[in-house]
C-alpha cells in the first residue's frame, strides 16, 4: 500500500513550494488516476515518488508497504518495487537497449535476493514481453530509445516496467504523444500488469487514457493539493467541465 501523508515539496534550489500537503492512499490491487491542469504538480509527485534529487521534501512522508522511502536512493526504491514510467523517456546513446534492460533487471533481482537471469533466460523473457507490446527485439539492439518515435519510447517504458516486475507503478502522462493505436497497445500492456499485488498511479491530463486503463479512483490535483477525489465518473465530468472550477482556464 502506498500512503502519502501531508507531502510538501519544493524544487531543491528554489523556495517556491510545488506540493503543499498531499494526502493519498493507494491500496494494492487498485489503480488510481491523478488528473489536473498543467503546472499543478503532477509530474513533481511522480518524480518525488521515484526519488529524483532535484526536489526537496520539506514536510510529510511517503510510505510504501508501511516503510518510509524518502531516505532511499532511486535504485533502492526500484528494488523495493517502485517504477516510474517517464513522460519523456531518456535516450542513452552508446548503451544497447538489451544491455540496459539486462543490467537493470539483474540489479533489481540481486537486491530482491533472486538469482540473476542467464543470457538465454533473459532473451526468452525479453522476446515474450516485447512481443506482447509489439516491440521488435532488433530495435533493442540499438542504443536505448535513440531514434525511437514517441510511441516506441512509451512502449519501451512499459517493456522495462514488465521486466522489472514492480509492485508500485507510476505512469506519468503515458498517453502524451500517442496515436489511438499506440494508446491501445500501451494500455493493454499496462492492463496486463494489473494484479491484486500491484498498486498503480496513473497521471494524466486527459480522460481518454482512462477509457483504456479504467481507474478505481480519480483524484484531482491542483495548486499542489488533492482538491477532489471520486470514482471513475469524475474523469468524465472533468472532460466536460475542464479544470475551470479549480481555478484554471480551459486548455
Amino acid at each position, binding site marked *: 500500500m502506498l500512503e502519502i501523508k501531508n507531502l510538501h515539496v519544493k524544487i531543491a534550489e528554489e523556495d517556491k513550494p510545488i506540493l503543499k500537503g498531499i494526502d493519498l492512499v493507494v491500496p494494492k490491487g487498485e489503480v488510481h488516476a491523478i488528473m489536473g491542469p498543467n503546472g499543478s504538480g503532477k509530474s513533481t509527485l511522480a518524480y518525488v515518488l521515484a526519488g529524483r534529487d532535484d526536489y526537496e521534501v520539506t514536510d510529510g512522508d511517503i510510505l510504501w508497504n508501511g516503510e518510509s522511502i524518502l531516505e532511499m536512493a532511486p535504485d533502492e526504491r526500484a528494488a523495493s518495487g517502485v517504477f516510474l514510467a517517464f513522460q519523456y523517456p531518456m535516450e542513452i546513446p*552508446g548503451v544497447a537497449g538489451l544491455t540496459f534492460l539486462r543490467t537493470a533487471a539483474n*540489479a*533489481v533481482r540481486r*537486491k530482491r535476493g533472486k538469482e540473476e537471469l542467464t543470457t538465454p533466460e533473459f532473451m526468452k523473457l525479453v522476446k515474450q514481453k516485447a512481443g506482447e507490446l509489439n516491440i521488435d527485439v532488433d530495435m533493442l539492439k540499438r542504443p536505448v530509445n535513440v531514434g525511437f518515435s514517441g510511441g516506441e519510447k512509451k512502449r519501451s517504458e512499459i517493456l522495462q516496467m514488465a521486466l522489472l516486475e514492480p509492485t508500485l507503478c507510476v505512469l506519468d502522462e503515458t498517453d502524451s504523444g500517442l496515436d489511438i493505436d499506440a494508446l491501445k497497445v500501451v494500455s493493454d500492456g499496462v492492463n496486463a500488469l494489473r494484479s491484486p499485488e500491484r498498486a498503480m498511479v496513473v497521471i494524466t491530463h486527459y480522460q481518454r487514457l482512462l477509457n483504456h486503463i479504467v481507474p478505481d479512483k480519480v483524484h484531482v490535483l491542483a495548486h499542489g493539493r488533492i482538491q477532489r477525489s471520486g470514482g471513475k465518473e469524475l474523469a468524465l465530468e472533468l472532460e466536460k467541465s475542464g479544470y475551470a472550477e479549480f481555478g484554471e482556464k480551459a486548455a
Partner: protein
Amino acid sequence: MTVAVMKTKAEQSFAEGFSEVQEKLPGSTAVRAIREEAAQRFAELGLPHRRIEEWKYTDLRNQVKDALPPRSGEKVAMTIADVIVALGPLAHVDAHRVVFVNGSHRPELSSPGGLAGVNIQSLASALETAEGGNAAIAGIASQHSDAVMALNTAYMSDGAVVQVEAGAALDKPLMLVHIRAGKAPCFAAVRNVIEVGAKASARIVEAFVSLPGAAGDGQINTVTQVNVGEEAVVTHVKVAADAGEGVTHLSNWMSRIAKSAEYRGFQLTQGVNLARNQIRIDFDGEDAKLDLSGVFLGRGSDHIDTTLVVDHAVPSCESRELFKGVLDGNARGIFQGKIIVQQAAQKTDGKQMSQALLLSENAEFDSKPELEIFADDVVCGHGATCAELDKDLMFYCQSRGIPAEIAKVLLIESFIGEAVDQIDDEAIGEAVMAFARGWLS
C-alpha cells in the same frame, strides 16, 4: 643573439647521460654521427616549456624533474607468461608479437617465426647496416626542431623496422609490445619504422604496458613512423596503459598517407602520469582517408596531452578526428588539433571533435582546435565539448534499479565507446574497452 638559460636538472642529466651511454647504443658510424648531432640539438633546445606555443599547456621543463637512466643493456629476467600478464586484455588478441623490455628487443619472448608478407627487423640490428640504418633514420634530420624527437634520435635503443610487402594482407595483427619491467626506474627511447606497401593491408598495435612489480617511475620516449602506400589500408593502434604512479610517456607518430590509401589510427592513454601524444599526418596523394581517434583517462594528478597536426597538401582527401577524455581528481586533459588545408588541397573534407567528461570539480580540459585553410572549396569543421555526467541520465538509470556506481560506468563506457568503435577490429576494440573498464572499476 641567444640568451643563456639555466639548464634544469633533467636537461643536464639527459645531456650527461648521453655521453655516458653513447658508446653502448647501437648503430653504424653514420648513425653515431646523427645521434651526436641530435644530442647537440637537444642540448641547445632544452626541454620544451610553456612559452613555446605548442607546449603552452604542457611544460616539460617544469614537469620532468629528472632524467632516469637508460637500462636497455640490463636484462630483466622474464617469461612469456610474464608478457601475457603485462599485456592484460591485449593478450586475448591473436597477434604476432614482437616484444621489447625496457627498450631492448627480446626475441625469446616474441612470437616465433615470421608473419607472411612482412619483413620485421629490430631497429638495433637495422641501425648497424647501411641500408637498414638509412631506412630507419630517413627523415630524421628534418625532425630535429622538436626537442623530444631529438632526444629520441640521440637515445633510441631499439624498436621494430617493419616492411609489409606490396599487395600483402596480414592475416593477424602485428603487435609491438613495449614492457616496462624491473625494480629500477628507467628511461627507454624506442623507435618503430613501419612501411606498408601499395595495396597491402595491415593492423598494427603498439602496446606500452608494465609488468606488475615494475618500478613506479618510468620514462618512455617513443617515435613511430608510418608510410602508408598507395591504396593500402592500415589500422594503427597505440595502447599506453601503465600501472606506475610516476610514468612519463612522450610519443610521436609521424604518418604519411599515399594516394587512395586509408589510415585508421587510435590511441588509448591511461595509468600514465604525464603524457604527450604528438601526431603528425601528411597526405601525400589524392583521395586518401584518415580516421584518427583516441581515449584518454586521467585521475589524481595525471596530465594527458594530445597534440596533432594534419596537413592536407593534396586535393580530395578526407580526415576525421574524434578524441574523448574522462578526467577525475585533479587530472588535466589537453587536446590541440591543427588541420592545415593547403591552397592546392581543394575538395578537402575534414572534421574534428574533442570531448571530455569531467568527474570532479578540479579536473580540467583544455581544447585548442586550429584550422588553417588556404583552399576555397573545402568542407571543414571542428567542435569541442566538456561536460559532467548527465544527471538526468543518471536518474533514469537509477530509477530502473541500476546502482549509481554501475550507472556511472555504463554512461562513461557509452561516452568513450563512440571513439573505441572507430577501431575496425573487434578483438582489439574489445581489449581497449576492457582496459578502460579496468581503469574505471
